[in-house]
């Protein structure tokens, strides 16, 4: 593998990690709003969210910084084209995080604050997903001196809405699944029942939206549809992983209960990994079609090696800390069961 390929694989890894963590994070905000009155389920969602949202946010920053560092030229083009949607995401993010911490402090206005953070939890991923169809080409206006994004054309395209629908259904499915597992770990039957039911409804929706997205691609994006056909084996594997994860929600337990949520979460994450690997491979060699390829957007080798060293050292130092974090907030019964 040459250096630019290694770099894009690292970026892909970060997109993947953030899409998992971000989905769970924003989804948990949404579920905390929906199940506000079902005290147990809402509490479980908030219990996960309180210590974790800051850490999740750092992964977003990690993604932005790594993209700008490994592919400075592509980041410049993406930024120029996407300035309006990305700024809207940033504004919503600011509002959401602020209201999240406000609501931890000011219980009296909890409901209003809760709704704000819940709704932004839907809007932010929706807007973030709109980056995908834009990188496929077709929406960018090259008539002027510099490429720009006519928002009218983007927002009147069915392809955009298919992407957004797909992103939202995956977000809600994954977060429901994760929270089902979290409630199971907390031995909270009532919350587990609610989240399991939500996941059962959302799983097939997500799969259906994925197909719909592929069918509504704009003509300019047909290059990726063709490439994706070549990745068919990976997509098939991914569907198989989904099947395992989804049915795991019904497997009988020895104690008489239904479902192995841990198996379901792991399989569905594997499914998303396989599918997004296949999608990423089909996206190569373009970062933004047809303006920027992996090779042309790449930084120099000296910078690449320094950055690589930084990631290796950083990962080694932080793995134990992440393990500690996981022990304290995702495993420790004293935290999971606090009232």
């Amino acid at each position, binding site marked *: 593998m040459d250096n630019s390929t290694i770099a894009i694989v690292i970026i892909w890894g970060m997109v993947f990690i953030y899409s998992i963590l971000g989905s769970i994070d924003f989804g948990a905000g949404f579920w905390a709003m929906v199940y506000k009155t079902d005290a147990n389920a809402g509490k479980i969602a908030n219990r996960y969210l*309180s*210590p*974790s949202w*800051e*850490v999740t*946010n*750092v992964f*977003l*920053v*990690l993604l932005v*910084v790594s*993209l*700008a*560092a*490994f592919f*400075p*030229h592509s*980041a*410049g*083009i*993406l*930024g*120029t084209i996407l*300035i*309006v949607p*990305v*700024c809207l995401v*940033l*504004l919503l*993010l*600011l*509002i959401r*995080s*602020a209201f*999240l*911490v*406000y609501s*931890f*402090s*000011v219980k009296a206005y909890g409901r209003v604050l809760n709704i704000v953070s819940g709704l932004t939890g839907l809007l932010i991923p929706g807007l973030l997903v709109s980056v995908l169809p834009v990188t496929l080409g077709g929406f960018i206006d090259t008539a*002027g001196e*510099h490429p*720009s994004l006519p928002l009218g054309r983007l927002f009147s395209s069915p392809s955009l809405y298919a992407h957004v629908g797909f992103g939202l259904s995956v977000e809600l499915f994954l977060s429901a699944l994760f929270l089902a597992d979290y409630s199971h770990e907390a031995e909270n039957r009532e919350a587990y029942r609610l989240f399991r039911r939500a996941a059962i409804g959302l799983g097939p929706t997500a799969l259906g939206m994925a197909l719909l997205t592929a069918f509504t691609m704009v003509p300019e994006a047909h290059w990726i549809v063709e490439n994706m056909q070549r990745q068919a084996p990976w997509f098939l594997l991914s569907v198989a992983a989904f099947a395992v994860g989804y049915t795991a929600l019904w497997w009988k337990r020895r104690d008489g209960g239904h479902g192995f949520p841990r198996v379901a979460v792991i399989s569905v994450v594997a499914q998303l990994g396989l599918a997004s690997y296949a999608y990423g491979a089909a996206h190569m060699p373009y970062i933004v079609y047809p303006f920027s390829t992996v090779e042309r957007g790449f*930084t*120099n080798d*000296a*910078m690449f090696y*320094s*950055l690589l060293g*930084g*990631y290796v050292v*950083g990962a080694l*130092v*932080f793995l134990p*800390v992440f393990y*500690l974090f996981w022990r*304290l*907030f995702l495993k*420790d019964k004293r*935290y999971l069961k606090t009232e």
Partner: protein
Amino acid sequence: MDQVTLARALFGSSMAFHIIFATLGVGVPLMIAAAETLFQIKKDKDYETMAKRWTKGFAVLLGVAIPSGTIVGTMLTLLWPGFMEIVGQVIALPFQIEIFAFFLEALFMSIYVYAADRLSPGMRILSVTLVALGASASAVLITDAQAWMNTPQGFRYDNGVVTDVHPWQAFFNPSFFVTAGHVLVSAYMTGAFAIASIGAYQLLRGRHSERVFAYHRKGLFLGLAIGGIMSLLTALNGHETAQMLHKHQPEKLAASEGLFHTTAYAPLVVFGTPDPEVGEVVGGIKLPWMLSFLATNRFDGVVKGLYDYPREDWPPLYVHTLFNLMVGIGTLLIGYALLAVLYRYIRKRPFPRWLLLLFLTGGPLAMIGIETGWIFSCSARQPWTIYHIQRTSEAAIKSGNLGMLFVLFLSIYAVLLVLTVLVLTFYFRRHPVSAVLDKTT
């Protein structure tokens, strides 16, 4: 406004917003760590209460610091694509390492707040120290990027092409250590004076039990003590920073002092308006020979004036006022700390009301010092984004709806400033310290 001006306005105001929360995010953890440590040493419960309450406020501030930092970080790529293309090739390291500082702070902040009851005292001090360390490291690292913009090195740049890159040379650029030191100590002093302001406010309000008064006196004095030390360090290090400017960015120093003619025995002029037609500062207070001394440590040192540079490379002249404000505030706050020492240790009297009123202004003044200092540093670099390498007009985004975005961002910043103050006031009114203190005695 044209595209470049709009980009500057949008970015500058976003930075000015982030810096409020970010600076407190660096300064307050140090105060929390100090209070936790005092509690473990003196076994005085008041300090534990302080640490807890400051942490509560800090968590709210962090809720705004983090997303607003995410905003400026992303905006850097959005608004300055030309700049980021060079950054990505030359000075990406501090940005990358900073991420790990963020992880450190975010992870241990959650551990300190949500797992406090499950931690041993030693682990508690360790977590809060790591939070403070993470915040300080993130300030140092981002300042490295800024220092490199002022004194760029570690690469060659010809005809828009970057070659011969040495990432670590860029990292250890000549102004890194002084500037990072200045940013750190000024942030600590701001956090400390902010805490002192709150203490002064509570003492002025009266209507407390003696127990509560004692608590606030301890908080006030801790703030003044750390604030005083840090303001001394800030001034000492600021002097070194000015000498760095003399060596590496003479136009900037000249603009900050309104010096037009290159000369030995250059005077320091406080306030007034630099007038390029007259060739000096009009209406200021002149301290003869002092600028030469400040810049070179000797009265006959030669300091360069603006006339040595082409007019289109001059920084804006209003930076003189910004610089005066920062230095003036620094001097004033050292005075505050001296007064505190005088009353407490020499006259051995409680602080009189007028002094408490002065202390009340310390926090806001320090914050103004931070704001003017940063706006000075960034504006006096103009017209360059990367000093003598890239002009701001070459760095800026070429298309996009910036006007609408500018209005949108400004209004949200204003709303969040107000809301944050309201939330903090509401919370601390609802949970007065008297309730905690009466329980523990």
